[in-house]
């Protein structure tokens, strides 16, 4: 049946993320996929959830991709998927964030992005300056950090991105099925790996 299965093409945005979610929720229940829905194509609370979480979902994807327009495309896809899902409303934010991170990472890893995209987007934006003056990061460093992000184990990369997108440790633990205690370790290891791509202060520690 493998062949017959492969023959029936069915595209599903954010499929990997939703499948992971479904796996976690137990096989067969298929929470968070389009298949479980029988009430119609679009869920009723979509607008409410969209307005509440859109900025965050774009933010998650933008941290991965470094380009806001691409991140908005990812967000559209993720919300479209969500709209046809039966993910419980209480879990929407975590689900959306995880789906956005996976979808964006897939895109980052696919290598099919236009090479100039990130550069153009970053050049159009002013240099990113955090409240710490020394944290001005060059374009080249940003590129290297993203390349390193794409090489990280999937869970580490998602945990890092979710944490930096403002999800609490408890949210990250729930969303990724990690123990609360291991979130800090996972995030730290990811940061340590990415930190190596930043020239500055390489020996300041």
């Amino acid at each position, binding site marked *: *049946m493998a062949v017959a299965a492969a023959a029936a*093409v069915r595209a599903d945005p954010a499929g990997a993320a939703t499948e992971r979610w479904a796996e976690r929720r137990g096989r067969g229940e298929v929470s968070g996929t389009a298949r479980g829905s029988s009430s*119609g194509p679009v869920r009723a609370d979509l607008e409410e959830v969209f307005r509440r979480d859109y900025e965050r979902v774009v933010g998650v994807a933008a941290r991965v991709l470094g380009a806001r327009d691409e991140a908005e495309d990812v967000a559209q896809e993720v919300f479209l998927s969500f709209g046809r899902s039966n993910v419980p409303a209480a879990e929407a934010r975590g689900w959306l964030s995880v789906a956005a991170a996976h979808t964006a990472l897939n895109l980052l890893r696919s290598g099919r992005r236009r090479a100039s995209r990130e550069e153009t987007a970053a050049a159009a*934006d002013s240099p990113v300056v*955090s409240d710490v003056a020394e944290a001005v990061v060059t374009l080249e460093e940003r590129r290297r950090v993203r390349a390193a992000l794409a090489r990280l184990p999937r869970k580490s990369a998602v945990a890092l991105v979710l944490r930096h997108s403002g999800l609490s440790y408890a949210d990250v633990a729930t969303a990724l099925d990690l123990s609360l205690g291991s979130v800090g370790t996972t995030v730290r290891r990811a940061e340590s790996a990415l930190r190596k791509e930043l020239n500055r202060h390489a020996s300041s520690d």
Partner: protein
Amino acid sequence: MRHPTEGVLRRLVDEPAGVADADRRHVADCAQCLSEVASLQQDATLVGAALATAGTSDVEAGWQRLQAAAHSARPPAAHPARAQAVPQPRTSRYRAFLRRPAAAALGVAVVLAGAGTAAANDWVKIFRTEQVAPISFSTSDLVSLPDLEAYGNLEITKETRVRTVPGAGVAAAQSGLDVPEVAGLPRGVTGDPVYQVGEEAAATFTFSPERAAEAAAQAGEPLPPEPAGLDGSSVRLVAGPGVAQIWTSSSGLPALVVGRAVAPTAYSSGVPFETVRDYLLSLPGLPTEIAAQLRTFTADGSTLPLPVPSDQVSTRTEQVDGHQATVLTTRDRLLSAVVWVEDGVVTVVGGALDDDELLDVARGLT
């Protein structure tokens, strides 16, 4: 006391309140831990800055775009600034592409299976697949496709156990199929494939009037009158064995799959095929549009219907070695597959590649 772990110190940077009092007291008095926290904090800040992007998004514009996409039941339109190249997640779609459709394909095929009048308790061969034909329906129809479990008992009598085997020779020996050889790999696909073999799979669907009545009641509609002899009628679908060669991309997901299997064959017991088909098609829950499309399939049975979401996948017909092949391409052109049947054996070339690249692979198989 022992120094808190790095993970605890890292959390202290973000959520001091989440760290146990004892650990916080320790860190406050420990020069080594304080230095460690400062270092972790600096790394976190730098990495955060490297990942950050400036600007905000227009929520209202985003919502309008989503509504347009949802209402037109099409994938979201590309960002206006770059309609030419829409980078989308190939790999996640690919995963779905590989895993999802088995049940749906089987379900629809089972609905369509069963033709001619069969002697009671005798399995009569209805069809051997000689042709593949896509049935189009939109995604909203797809999610509301009735689960056949609601109308009877769908029993997987022989489950496929797919296993990896060491090479083409073993794959051929175990599947009894000629393992197609790929003449030249498309650009971007490298390395050696993994060979997988699946055994024969079989499923039997037996209609149950009780379940159908229940399903109808849930849909708030009366169950249409049941034709005589339908109760207990079964259709059986047998597929496989099959063999697949899978080239994996650097992300660990399949980049190219070349699969071949003995195409599904259907058997029937009980009432005529048309009776089963028309009755199932009349049951509450099946969108009328799909029902109309399914009705066009006749009982001669040489056709394997392939459910295809029309809003996301386009299809066309091409020739592969003199056989009519169906080419499926997702609307975003990220995934394609070429499917054809030759002498009761179905071959699929699929992947995250352009359809023309896959056609080249398909035509180059030896």
